[in-house]
């Protein structure tokens, strides 16, 4: 059976599909029938808390770096060298292997004008794709979903967050993405007697608010069933690390290889707010990250999907150049972003290492707006119109 045919069939033979209102079924059929040829996927990994970029991509030739960080700098001899100036934290050994295979772009000095050093606000800015003087109530991936709606029908499962709650990044103006810890759990949640009754019996009240609640419920049930039924197709044979991130990336790999029609996946790893004794903590987290990502890419490669998947890793801000008195670092500004997967790189490093002698009050100056990376992913990878999503045209990057 051809993949598309299988998709069409399986979506309507699941046990509970009788419960989905007819109008939704029609939408879904229309969507599945119009599967676009582009099957590219973005996986976003959010490092929450402000990952210290200078100890992630280390400017090992820079004396200022060693002077400002006498007790926490990564020793020159331990750095995994990428070129003559910068190298990776030794905890990222697995990422270095991917780099050597041409699968990693390291983008330095990413930020935005008038940086905000509050976790909440800066994450808000990254997730909504706003400027620091703008307040948006929808996220950039949510608005990507909005742009995919056809004829008033939208599909939440086109963007999945692997978690129990949904981040602002995945909330659109017309449609929200779907959050699930794993397909089984969400499916179970939607299979109780009450939900069944509610999806069978239309509301009497006709207020917008009530209609919206019933619509959200119906979409959730329908998406949960779809994802659940598809997720059974392929089980990963890889040995993933038993960490939370490992489990979540395994779920994503299974969904991708099963052919779920999801274009964007979102996961977070928290704990990067390293004000105290940074090295142990960051080392542990970066290792978790690298090992999970390495298995994930290996899994995708084994299933011939790595070419179609781009993994973007970001954090809400970097940290100050100068270490603090507790062997940690405080909130900073510009940071590096990794793009892993897709075709082989000819330019694996974008932007030179940060200039440590030209600081803004002890903080790095940004060279590249993070929305340029979003633009690159939206236009170049997902083949959509970033202007509709980011409100204006940002200059895309040439990665390959």
């Amino acid at each position: 059976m051809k993949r598309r045919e299988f998709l069409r069939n399986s979506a309507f033979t699941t046990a509970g599909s009788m419960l989905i209102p007819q109008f939704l079924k029609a939408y879904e059929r229309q969507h599945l029938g119009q599967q676009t040829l582009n099957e590219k996927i973005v996986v976003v990994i959010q490092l929450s808390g402000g990952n210290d970029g200078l100890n992630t991509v280390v400017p090992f030739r820079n004396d200022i770096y060693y002077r400002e960080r006498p007790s926490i700098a990564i020793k020159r001899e331990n750095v995994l060298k990428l070129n003559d100036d910068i190298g990776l934290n030794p905890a990222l050994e697995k990422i270095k292997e991917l780099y050597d295979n041409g699968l990693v772009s390291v983008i330095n000095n990413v930020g935005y004008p008038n940086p905000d050093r509050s976790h909440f606000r800066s994450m808000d800015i990254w997730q909504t794709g706003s400027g620091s003087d703008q307040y948006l109530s929808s996220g950039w991936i949510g608005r990507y979903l909005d742009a995919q709606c056809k004829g008033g029908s939208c599909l939440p499962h086109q963007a999945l967050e692997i978690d129990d709650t949904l981040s602002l990044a995945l909330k659109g103006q017309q449609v929200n993405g779907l959050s699930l810890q794993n397909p089984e759990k969400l499916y179970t949640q939607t299979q109780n007697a009450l939900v069944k009754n509610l999806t069978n019996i239309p509301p009497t009240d006709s207020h917008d608010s009530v209609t919206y609640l019933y619509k959200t419920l119906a979409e959730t049930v329908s998406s949960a069933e779809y994802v659940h039924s598809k997720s059974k197709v392929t089980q990963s044979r890889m040995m993933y690390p038993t960490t939370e991130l490992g489990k979540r990336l395994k779920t994503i790999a299974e969904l991708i290889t099963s052919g779920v029609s999801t274009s964007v996946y979102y996961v977070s790893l928290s704990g990067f707010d390293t004000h105290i004794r940074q090295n142990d903590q960051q080392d542990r987290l970066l290792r978790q990250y690298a090992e999970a990502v390495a298995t994930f890419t290996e899994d995708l490669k084994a299933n011939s999907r790595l070419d179609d998947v781009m993994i973007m890793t970001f954090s809400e801000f970097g940290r100050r150049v100068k270490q603090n008195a507790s062997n940690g670092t405080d909130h900073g500004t510009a940071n590096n972003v990794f793009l892993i997967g897709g075709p082989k790189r000819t330019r694996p490093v974008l932007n030179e290492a940060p200039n440590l002698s030209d600081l803004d009050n002890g903080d790095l100056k940004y060279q590249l707006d993070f929305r340029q990376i979003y633009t690159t992913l939206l236009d170049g990878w997902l083949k959509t119109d970033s202007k509709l999503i980011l409100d204006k045209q940002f200059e895309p990057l040439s990665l390959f």
Partner: protein
Amino acid sequence: MEATPNQRMIQHLFWRAGFGASPAEIQTAFSKIRTQLVKDLLHDSKEAEALEVVKNESNYTLKNAKRALKNTNSREEMREQFKEMAKERIQTIGSLNDVWVARMGQEKGVLREKMTLFWHNHFACRSRLANFVEQQNNTLRAYALGNFRDLLMAVSKDAAMLQFLNNQQNRKKSPNENFAREVMELFTLGRGNYTETDIKEAARAFTGWGFNLQGEFVFREIFHDDSPKTIFGKTGNFRGEDVIEMLLANPQTAQHIATKVYRFFVNERVNNDHVALMAKRFYRSNYDIADLMAFVFNADWFYNPANVGAQIKSPVELLAGYQRTLHMDFMDKAPVLYLQKALGQVLFNPPNVAGWPGGKTWIDSSSLLTRMQIPKLLFRNETLRLDVKDSGDANEEVIKRKKMFEVSMNWEAFAKPFEKVAEKDLPKTLASYLLQVPINDILLTKLEQQVTDKERVDKIKQLAVSFMSLPEYQVC
């Protein structure tokens, strides 16, 4: 029985002017006319009782803390202790949150608490200092039903706000425009009613406005730019107070506030005619907030069926509503904080200075399913397998998962107002008190069929839990 128009009117008023009411309270209100009910609500909220959680405030000021630490420890230890203190402060903010939610669940002063919540969203602000947070909240509460001029002036001179919007750094030699911009864009005029020059010049008028470690407003004259400024086409040696007066003199401020009041208390979908009436009244009364609210609650259009049940309850309204409707108490603060996180609204933690966007943004697949499970967590000892996210901030109070929710609730007392209701009318009557919109009769019958208990109180409990699990319970 279905709700009578009078019952519907009363419940609508109680939900919008407060956080709902118990069936007993609703029945007590049956005999009163609308104007009397509105008068009672205002009268009941006449006094502002401050929240007092941050004990022994001096402990929380950095100055004293630093002094206490200075001689004793190494720098490393000192930082550790600061860290501990920061955690303590955050926990105190968690306690403040808990106490405020409990307060919203009380019978006394509901309108004032609802207004305080409205202003907390209008003057959205964050601070890590518990005493600053408490002080600001009490300022909002004190002026919540007073004059908007006094409220605006007090908030503009409030330590938490000055800190949040960087006015402490707003100095003659290096002006910081953050406060000047937000006071125009969000607090008074709204976008598009000022120029960038107005902001630049107004920022200069606010130079020198700051606060001390005790959280008191200080005007630091040496940082103030005393040269002439041109704001809204007028030139003079303006100070911050003058800018605030200019903002209030502009009827656009009344229009902006009236629109926000309408969207919060009446309907997300704005009716321009009604807002125009409100704005006119508000401006003419010289910004009397209580007068504006009485005007809204007494207006026939407020009770228009299009407005009843039109709003999606915010997570905090939902939590306060459970307490108000059922006379129920949460036994500890963990579930209160956990549910706020799970549902996307943590008091004192608005996403940014623009506040919570509200309305449909409260609802996504996860938050809706969670909302529908809450009654079973509260009253059937079911557990919720849901992890809430870390904000990333190492200082934040960690509540990842809360399994069991302990509440105190007297179902006999709750059932009492339904004693005289005939058995066959019970489901519909109960639904009319718990839901602001009708539900499908087929659904009602199905839910009734699921009731297994024979005892009346248990039957009422089972039905109430079912009704409160419905999407219809999420609106008011």
